[in-house]
């Protein structure tokens, strides 16, 4: 492999992972934009999404690459059921754990979100274990689980190409890019989007203008959850290992991406996600895998030192 080929390959990997991170980061950033809550449970919601996907595959009896090997239609239910599940779960969590705290001090919903995240992690542990056991045999509840590649892993560029592009990358780009575009259009042009922006700006004024604030916030959680659901299927198919604690890892990356881009800004989240993905890939290749986290957070701290509200974040002046 020549140097250029290595760079291109790492770029492809970085972009693909970055896209997935961006998709999760959008869920963080939307919730933050609207109610200024860092939804800690978002990463673990994503983890539960991957577990549901694995369970569905188990029920369907798919534990390896389905034939025909390109894109199997039997995985279509995943892209319907998992986002629906995550959206519903996210909405319920908002309803039960965050909505009662809307008028409480800022720290309260954040701590509540950490609590929800812990509950999710524990559900993940049980899910991988006896009661809803899928593949693990029940004993190794905490052990990582293999996730089948949903699409063919043949190289699209031909057998003798050094650069690997598979249907997995196509799946990542094909699922995430339209989602991001659709989301920006939704926020920009629809009535709901307008209401979201209004609530984000000033809840009371929005309420006076006849916006049902709780409903708009609920819708935000629904959309954020659905994005996490799609991301979880794509991620699992792309990385092919899932474990009950990965919500923290992946959530951290997404969260860092959201903050890096300027939390609350949709393009910022995408930019941040892609940046983190590429930096990770580059660091894995050129520094060392075990130092990658350190590299990512060093970049975060450096960026925040010079731009305290992130790359694309608006500078918010504090009101007296």
């Amino acid at each position: 492999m020549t140097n250029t080929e290595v760079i291109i390959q790492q770029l492809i990997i970085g972009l693909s992972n970055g896209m997935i991170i961006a998709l999760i980061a959008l869920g963080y950033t939307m919730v933050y934009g609207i109610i200024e809550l860092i939804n800690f449970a978002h990463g673990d919601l994503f983890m539960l999404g991957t577990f549901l996907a694995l369970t569905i595959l188990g029920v369907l009896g798919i534990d390896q690459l389905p034939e025909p090997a390109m894109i199997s239609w039997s995985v279509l239910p995943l892209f319907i059921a998992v986002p629906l599940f995550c959206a519903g779960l996210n909405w319920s969590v908002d309803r039960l754990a965050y909505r009662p705290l809307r008028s409480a001090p800022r720290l309260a919903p954040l701590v509540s979100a950490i609590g929800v995240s812990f509950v999710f992690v524990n559900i993940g542990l049980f899910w991988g274990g006896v009661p809803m056991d899928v593949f693990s045999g029940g004993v190794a509840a905490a052990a990582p689980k293999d996730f089948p590649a949903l699409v063919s892993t043949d190289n699209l560029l031909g057998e003798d190409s050094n650069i690997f592009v598979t249907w997995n990358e196509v799946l990542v780009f094909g699922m995430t890019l339209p989602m991001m575009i659709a989301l920006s259009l939704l926020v920009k042009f629809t009535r709901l989007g307008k209401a979201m922006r209004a609530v984000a700006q000033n809840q009371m004024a929005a309420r006076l203008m006849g916006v049902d604030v709780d409903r708009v916030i609920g819708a935000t959680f629904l959309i954020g959850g659905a994005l996490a659901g799609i991301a979880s299927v794509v991620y699992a198919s792309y990385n092919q290992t899932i474990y009950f604690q990965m919500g923290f890892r992946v959530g951290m990356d997404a969260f860092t991406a959201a903050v890096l881009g300027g939390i609350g800004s949709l393009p910022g989240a995408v930019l941040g996600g892609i940046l983190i993905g590429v930096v990770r890939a580059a660091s894995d290749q050129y520094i060392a895998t075990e130092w990658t986290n350190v590299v990512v957070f060093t970049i975060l701290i450096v960026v925040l030192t010079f731009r305290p509200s992130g790359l694309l974040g608006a500078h918010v002046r504090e009101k007296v």
Partner: protein
Amino acid sequence: MLGGIRRGLVVNAVWVLFAVAAVIPFLDMLVPQEYRIAGLMRPIFIFAILGLGLNIVTGYTGLLNLGIAAFMAIGAYSYAILTCEIYPFRLGFTAALAITIGIGAMAGVVLGLPTIRLRGDYLAIVTLGFGEMVQDSLKNLDNITQGTQGINPLPAPAVFGHTLGMQTILPSYYFFLALVGIVVVFSRNLEHSRVGRSWISIREDEIAATCMGINPVKVKLLAFAMGAALASMSGGLWAAYLGSTGEPGNYDFQISIIALCIVIIGGMGNIGGVLLGAFVMIGFNSILLVKLTTLLQQKGWMNTQNVLTVPGNWKYMIFGLALILAMRFKPEGLLPSRQLKAELHEAADERRSKQGKVRVP
């Protein structure tokens, strides 16, 4: 009048907790071996010190720090490197602990300097990231930190010429309890000093505090340094208690969250609350769960093949639900500081009126 009585109660809570802790070893002697808890109580004291450290940063100053475990790790490793015989220093317990505290304070400043201007949530993510960075660094710098093995064995601490073996429970029990007492007195003096009042005023309203001539950068840095110093001390004690640093993964996000739970569930900004929080959280985690597991094993009710029957597996479910319920029903914690409680309600009313909701009296 009522306020005075309540304040009296809160102050007394500290001494009540100390009195309870002091008699537990004696009560212990009355019950059979398998119900004794004094041996398991030392982590409570160590985590109480960690909680008091976080209390300075988050409780008094209002800076949400999600990476306090990093300072505990720094403390544990500093202490280990200073005392372990495979390193050239080989200091005694007192000197090593003093230096460990100093190193912790410096680490606090190092994290504080670049991040001090960040707003709440941004600070939260940076501290969280810092925690991960420290853990990864300890894991990867194996020629200094022994990698994932951790540093061991550490010599038993010797205080004024007396060796405190951790197998004989009572001396180390009272020694750790006494250290908690010292930290409590230190913490209280800080709280009521000029510095402590500046911390609280920064928490309340940074802009107003700045207008009154308080330098927020300096004051916040000092809070970071003090919090980190105490966290580092708890780390050093932890290493001394275990006789090893354990692996770096032991100082992960969960520890930071447990420390946060101690402060928040106990009562933010209130020393008695933090002590009670440590008692409840660590008591649950390393006493109740442990005893329950042994009990279930003896009765033969625990099936290791089934994750649901192992009490330890329910830990995060219970922590999580406790946090959610605490925020819902008792956001000011079990033992609230009077001041903070009033402010919490005031802030809530303010937000409510901003949102157009009117509170019906």
